[in-house]
């Protein structure tokens, strides 16, 4: 079956522009995560969606970052007024949402802000 799909795979944008990153999770997975991975850094938690519950947005680094998940499936991460420090790989993962369930990651979107 299809895995987690992310688009675009690469995005180059100018400082100050808005960007939208898309994640298509595995069908039937109720939990969806966004992480950010910078060079030499661990995966930084950004946001978590579980079913119809309110998302945990505690990892979003500033109010320029927002995410939504429509119909319990596709998710979009939006970064407004991008800054150079936003350059990183943004990874999406989904899981069945049960305790201990492994995360299934997409291949990420590499964002470069010039």
């Amino acid at each position: 079956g299809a895995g987690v799909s992310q688009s675009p795979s690469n995005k180059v944008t100018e400082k100050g522009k808005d960007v939208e990153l898309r994640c298509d999770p595995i069908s039937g997975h109720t939990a969806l995560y966004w992480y950010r991975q910078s060079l030499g850094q661990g995966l930084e938690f950004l946001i978590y969606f579980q079913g119809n519950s309110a998302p945990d947005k505690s990892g979003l680094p500033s109010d320029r970052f927002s995410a939504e998940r429509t119909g319990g499936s596709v998710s979009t991460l939006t970064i407004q007024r991008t800054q150079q420090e936003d350059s990183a790989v943004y990874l999406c993962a989904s899981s069945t949402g049960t305790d201990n369930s492994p995360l299934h990651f997409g291949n990420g979107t590499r964002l470069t802000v010039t």
Partner: protein
Amino acid sequence: SQKIEQNSEALNIQEGKTATLTCNYTNYSPAYLQWYRQDPGRGPVFLLLIRENEKEKRKERLKVTFDTTLKQSLFHITASQPADSATYLCASGGTYKYIFGTGTRLKVLA
């Protein structure tokens, strides 16, 4: 704060030897640890999970241990092959908010 630490230095070993990677956690007691493999330009792929009440878990050439006294997990790859070259990430759970280490890059030399 809760922290997962992995040796950030790359590990080079000869083909056929056993690779051992270390994951240490501080300031909390995770209910379980997971290990992932990440290849360049790809997302992490789940390998193994071990619970705090399990001492050891095996899957083919992989073995993971969990020592709650030392607050440490060891990840072993026996009879290593060049195809095992990748970055290996340790992650802790217990709630939905997984905490990841920075990963250790393994290179298996032919």
